[in-house]
């Protein structure tokens, strides 16, 4: 069977790729486009390591087919820093030591950005509920919550 020819936009760049129906968006990002910042944890939508946004909505790339990306606008961790300048969230994760092994970090950053774009001043509880779909087995979460809140404060100019 012929592969699908998919035209999409990733991190602002018009992108095209070939994929088979069974390939997930995560497979396409990592294996076809060699954008390995998006991680595979569970492959079943439980851990959030493969979080990306599709037309502004936070999703797990492992639960979306590559062929579904046609005509969509996708944002991944690779588009977060601008040139050499880290995004505020990235900088705050470093300052607060909100990561250890780092596998979950791209997913947390993409998910946290998605939260703050819709809710610039969340409560700790709102941050925890929003990030409930992102698992971290190293930090115990507290530093992640602190980093997100510190970033939110800076982004609000507070």
């Amino acid at each position: 069977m012929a592969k699908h020819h998919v035209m999409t936009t990733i991190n602002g760049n018009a992108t095209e790729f070939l994929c088979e129906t069974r390939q997930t968006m995560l497979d396409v990002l990592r294996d076809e486009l060699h954008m390995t910042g998006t991680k595979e944890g569970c492959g079943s939508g439980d851990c959030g390591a493969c979080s990306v946004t599709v037309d502004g909505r936070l999703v797990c790339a492992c639960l979306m087919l590559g062929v579904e990306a046609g005509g969509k606008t996708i944002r991944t961790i690779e588009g977060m820093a601008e040139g050499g300048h880290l995004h505020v969230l990235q900088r705050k994760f470093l300052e607060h030591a909100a990561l250890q092994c780092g596998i979950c970090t791209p997913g947390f950053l993409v998910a946290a950005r998605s939260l703050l774009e819709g809710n610039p001043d969340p409560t700790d509880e709102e941050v925890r509920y929003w990030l409930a779909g992102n698992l971290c087995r190293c930090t115990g979460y507290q530093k992640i919550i602190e980093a997100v809140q510190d970033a939110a404060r800076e982004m609000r100019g507070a």
Partner: protein
Amino acid sequence: MRGHDKGVKMSEVRYEAPATASAAVALLAGASGPARVLAGGSDLLIQMRPRLHGPQHDVQLLVDLKGIAELTALTEEKGGYRIGAAMACMALVENAAFIKMWPGVTDAVKLIGSIQIKGRASVGGNVCNASPAADSVPALIAAGAVASVLGPAGRRDIAVEDIAAAPGKNILAKGEIVTSFLLPKRAPRSGDAYLRFTPRTEMDIAVVGVAVNLTLDDKGVCSAARIGLGAVAERVLLVPSAAATLIGTKVDEAALTKLAAAISAACRPIDDKRGTIAFRTKVAGVLARRAALIALARAQGGH
């Protein structure tokens, strides 16, 4: 698709994304091999993962419904709401007017998986996958939601409580798809609520789920009620005997005691690692009481 058991031989899958519901029906009805509809995909893609052990879901045709306008829209109709069966749960629970009219349905949909899952998962998928523990289903049943089903023989309406047959099995015929759910217009002084028991507050599967939807008359007496009960039978149940304990009362302590007993009597759960028969039966009654009080407060709040 990555799999823990690589090397499993997989059949090729044809992917179609029709622009109309009738085109989707034609594709499904004409399929010679196993065909599945793709809405959010949050259950389907996991079922399609290759594995050496356990049931293998062979799929040769995927019909993506998300390009069909009527399946992804939320529209006001006859004073109520029509929910597109394939619309993302997040899109539904971000709609302020819908939340105000159906706070219990909203609470239930919000409990489906993580933000990421809700960014893809659909109400139609939650209903049609026919899990007894599906969170949106008790609330939809209590709300009196009716599914609009399109198939090769035309369109028919099916009450949500009649769609599931058994765990993972629904009553839809070959080629039939649910296109939308109609939630009826609200009478004055109506309120709904959904509560579930889970060990965790997020990212968990209901051990028991109960939804109560009730209407009060101008004297504060319950004039109508519907109750949906999840995770304690082979499918989510509508429990008229429990609703009858509230109707004609002011939802007072005596009525709530009868409600809890009627709900527990309707339970026919399994024992599993998430809950025993005795636990589920008891907790169902407790949750019904609490959900009824929330629904009552919302009805008295008047919207």
